[in-house]
């Protein structure tokens, strides 16, 4: 019962923050709301017994990537409005297209979930073995070894990309 209440409370708060992100006027305020929603999502992970993921969510998303966002928001000049150059109708059409795609995706996920009956509760072993981080470790470093190593290549690409982009301008 308690978990259910907590879930719906968190979900509502996350939604509220999400709405605030797109409605507030200042970009920095948007970032603040986005960070708040990330933190709430982390709490949702805790509710799912995914402690490791929750901490990573805070560390990487809230603590790392959003700092980057905040820098970017402070870095680029927001005083000039670039929208003026864009035909408003074209933006509308693009918006409808993207929105439609997201909606279709959501529906597809919903249908898929509906078709595939999920276990009513998380697998027993996940709950019993309290140490979530060990479990993540075992999966990551045995079953999913190749994706893990590929991830490092991905990071390398990101690193080089960042430097190339930034250094060109220095």
């Amino acid at each position, binding site marked *: 019962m308690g978990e259910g209440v907590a879930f719906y409370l968190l979900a509502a708060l996350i939604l509220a923050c999400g709405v605030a992100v797109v409605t507030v006027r200042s970009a*920095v305020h948007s970032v*603040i709301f986005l960070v708040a929603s990330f933190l709430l999502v982390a709490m949702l992970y805790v509710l799912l017994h995914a402690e490791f993921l929750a*901490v990573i969510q*805070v*560390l990487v998303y809230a603590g790392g990537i959003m700092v980057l966002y*905040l820098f970017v928001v402070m870095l680029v000049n927001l005083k000039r409005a670039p929208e003026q150059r864009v035909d408003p109708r074209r933006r509308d059409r693009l918006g409808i297209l993207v929105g439609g795609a997201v909606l279709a995706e959501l529906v597809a996920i919903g249908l898929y979930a509906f078709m595939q009956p999920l276990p009513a509760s998380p697998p027993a072993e996940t709950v019993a073995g309290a140490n979530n981080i060990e479990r993540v470790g075992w999966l990551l470093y045995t079953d999913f070894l190749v994706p893990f190593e590929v991830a490092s290549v991905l990071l390398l690409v990101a690193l080089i990309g960042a430097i190339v982009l930034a250094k060109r301008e220095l």
Partner: protein
Amino acid sequence: MVDLIVVPLLKIVVLIVAVLTAVAYMVLLERKVQAWVQVRLGPMRVGPHGVLQPVADVLKLLIKEDITPSRVDRWVFTLAPIIVLVCAFWVFAVIPVGPTVELFGREVSLQLTDLNVGLLYVVSIASLGIYGTILAGWSSNSKYPLLGSLRASAQLVSYEVAVTMTLVTIILLTGSLSFNRIVEVQRDMGVWFAFLQPVAFFIYFVGGLAETNRAPFDLPEAEQELVAGFHTEYSGIRFALFFLAEYTNMIVVSAVAVTVFFGGWLAPFPNVGWLSWLGYIPGWMWFVIKVFGVLYAFLWVRATFPRYRYDQLMRLGWKVLIPLAIANVIVTAAVKVWWLS
């Protein structure tokens, strides 16, 4: 219900009062130590040898005018110090102050909660503190605070990488992220990790100095350069919150250092016969003594060294500490593999 809510609530109240007292006397200690190093007396007026100085400071900050400059972003301007303070307090949730003790016929652990992601929890919550700093500088809409906050955030993120990475070596030794477990392993091994991992401790200490903006890395608030850095525009109670948060953060860094590297609440020399009486001093007292020991090192460093320059600081972080941390992790892992096989 009692175990779930009331006991933690009581512990939290005790904790916050303890932290506030520690901060108050830390400030006094800092001024005193600084003064002694510099052959002065330090605060002497309020109470004998200035022992009531912290009370006077708090009262002064409380009844001072809290100015909101005209061009600031009001909400963010108020939010920033709250974020910094809350993040500083939040970290304490997982730090074990002592072993489980018997209190009023009830087993009470002197730790708020023992998370099995404890170490990562500390690192990630600490990383949230940056927001306060950046937002303070941005919302002030003034140049010195902005420069200060940009410096602060770039510095914080650089040193966080080194610190986070260096703590991996500790996990290699313990196989667990739980703080309680880390202390227990040190007890079972009979050696503090500071001696097993001096390099890791060095990186952690330097990184800790940098993350708490202490001299010689106090660049974000380098008085001689950026006046007061990111909190230049702050006054009154909102400044007090930053001030409180800074010292709380110092205590956090020392507390983590003590737990991870100096055996937490363990008494020293358990194996030396004639020093066995040291074991009668309660664990939490050892913890406090050790924390103040580390804090004293902070003050000592501050009184001794000139300040780094910004680019040199960044170079130290990225070009010295991070490679050192990576190398340390690899060497530790290799030694461990060799040892176990």
